[in-house]
């Protein structure tokens, strides 16, 4: 059985690769037609663009740095704010009852529409993008922590109290770790949204960043650059997601994985 599984995952990789090759080939041959090429770009030119960005011209790094800085800042600010707020409201039923309708309203509001307002408030620099991305990240983390705090097992709490934990120790040793596990389950979503917020913010008004590059290319119908930008963004979103995955594995090693056996 294990042998079969192994060859199964190997052939899976081959099929995945094959699919990629087929897509690229279809794209390449279809774009021989200039009409198609105008709308869909040409894979070789897209690749050339990426190569120029990273190697020959090496001019994308400053833009990437801006986008990534915005993403990381938004990710941390949003996560910490969401965690703090979630803990606070989860632990004080009165405050949460009062704020409930406002939180629901703020969450259901289409927040992308705030981008121009943030542009007015924070200018065209990175902070207006950070602010937009924070509004996306915050609610994801907030609702998860809020839920997590309310669903801490009463037995765990009673046990900790019987062991002599004071209110502050309960917060630090029971509520916070319990909430952290909920935060991590939302981090993959929130790092993606931080990225979306940053890029959309740039797209709607900025002077640097990968979103800005894409916007400029669109203005000149340079569809190859647009696709190159999309591919670079996707690659970096995957990298960020992987980093979160590694961090999660480190910090959440106490969590059971199904069918885990000990390596001897």
């Amino acid at each position, binding site marked *: 059985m294990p042998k079969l599984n192994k060859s199964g995952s190997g052939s899976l990789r081959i099929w995945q690769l094959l699919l990629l090759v087929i897509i690229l080939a279809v794209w390449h041959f279809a774009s021989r037609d200039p009409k198609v090429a105008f709308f869909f770009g040409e894979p070789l030119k897209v690749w050339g663009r990426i190569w120029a960005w990273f190697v020959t011209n090496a001019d994308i790094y400053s833009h990437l740095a801006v986008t990534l800085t915005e993403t990381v800042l938004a990710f941390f600010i949003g996560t910490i704010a969401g965690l703090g707020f979630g803990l606070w409201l989860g632990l004080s039923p009165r405050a949460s009852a009062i704020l409930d309708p406002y939180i629901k309203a703020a969450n259901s509001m289409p927040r992308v529409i705030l981008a121009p307002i943030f542009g007015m408030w924070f200018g065209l620099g990175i902070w207006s993008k950070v602010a937009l991305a924070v509004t996306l990240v915050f609610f994801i983390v907030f609702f998860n922590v809020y839920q997590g705090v309310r669903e801490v097992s009463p037995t765990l709490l*009673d046990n900790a109290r*019987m062991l002599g934990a004071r209110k502050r120790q309960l917060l630090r040793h029971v509520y916070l770790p319990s909430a952290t596990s909920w935060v991590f389950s939302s981090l993959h979503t929130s790092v993606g949204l931080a990225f979306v917020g940053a890029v959309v913010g740039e797209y709607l008004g900025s002077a640097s960043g990968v979103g800005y590059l894409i916007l400029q290319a669109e203005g000149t119908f340079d569809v190859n650059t647009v696709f190159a930008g999309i591919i670079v963004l996707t690659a970096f979103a995957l990298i960020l997601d992987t980093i979160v995955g590694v961090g999660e594995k480190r910090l959440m090693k*106490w969590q059971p994985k199904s069918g885990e056996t000990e390596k001897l």
Partner: protein
Amino acid sequence: MAEAALSLENISCTFVSRDDRSQRYTAVSDTTLAIAPGEFVSVVGPTGCGKSTLLNVSAGLLAPSSGQVKVFGQPLVGINERAGYMFQGEALLPWRSALDNVIAGLEFAGVARSEALDRGREWMRRVGLGGFEGRYPHQMSGGMRKRAMLAQTLIRDPDIILMDEPFSALDIQTRQLMENEVLDLWMAKRKAVLFITHDLDEAIAMSDRVIVLSAGPGTHPIGEFAIDLPRPRDVAEVRIDPRFVELHAAIWGVLREEVLKGYAQQKRA
């Protein structure tokens, strides 16, 4: 009798539904019981009769509707700090290793970490978990988790030990082993124990005194039996002692009717 380690005086507990104030349920009514220092008392009763409620009241986790709890003569306010509580369900912190769980009580009390770790390792050995310090709760079997919970409770050296069906989830062999281990630890330290169980055999084998509760609602003690079996006991061997069989028959005579009552109520509900 000397001053009781724990005494419940005319305790009643009525729960009110949060949504509908007129929905009431009296779990415990007018219960009085006392446990002397060093005494091992078991409380048996049909399922759902409010045994855990009594324990939560003794622990100070639940305030009774009326009546008073006294701990070594002092009225209990808030958490009962002289008591250790071994819960029925999973109570280990899943994000802490076994050792960190065992020393949690010391950590909360501000004991220096190195000393706490030493005492923690010592207790892990004492409950037979030496070498498993780094395991997380999900990596341990049910029996190992119970051992860790036992060490976690006893490391604080409480004067009163409250146990809520601590072994009900274990298989019979592990259970007898744990029962003997608890008896050994108790013989060495002689703390007051309030042990809740639905297993009459377990109650008789371990206790100095067995108290039988009536079926709910409005649970109250309806019988009390001194267990005069010699100690030290082995829970497996003591079961074939003629005196054990006699006591079992006597207590079961009282308990049987309540179990049937409780069963009938559950069926109706």
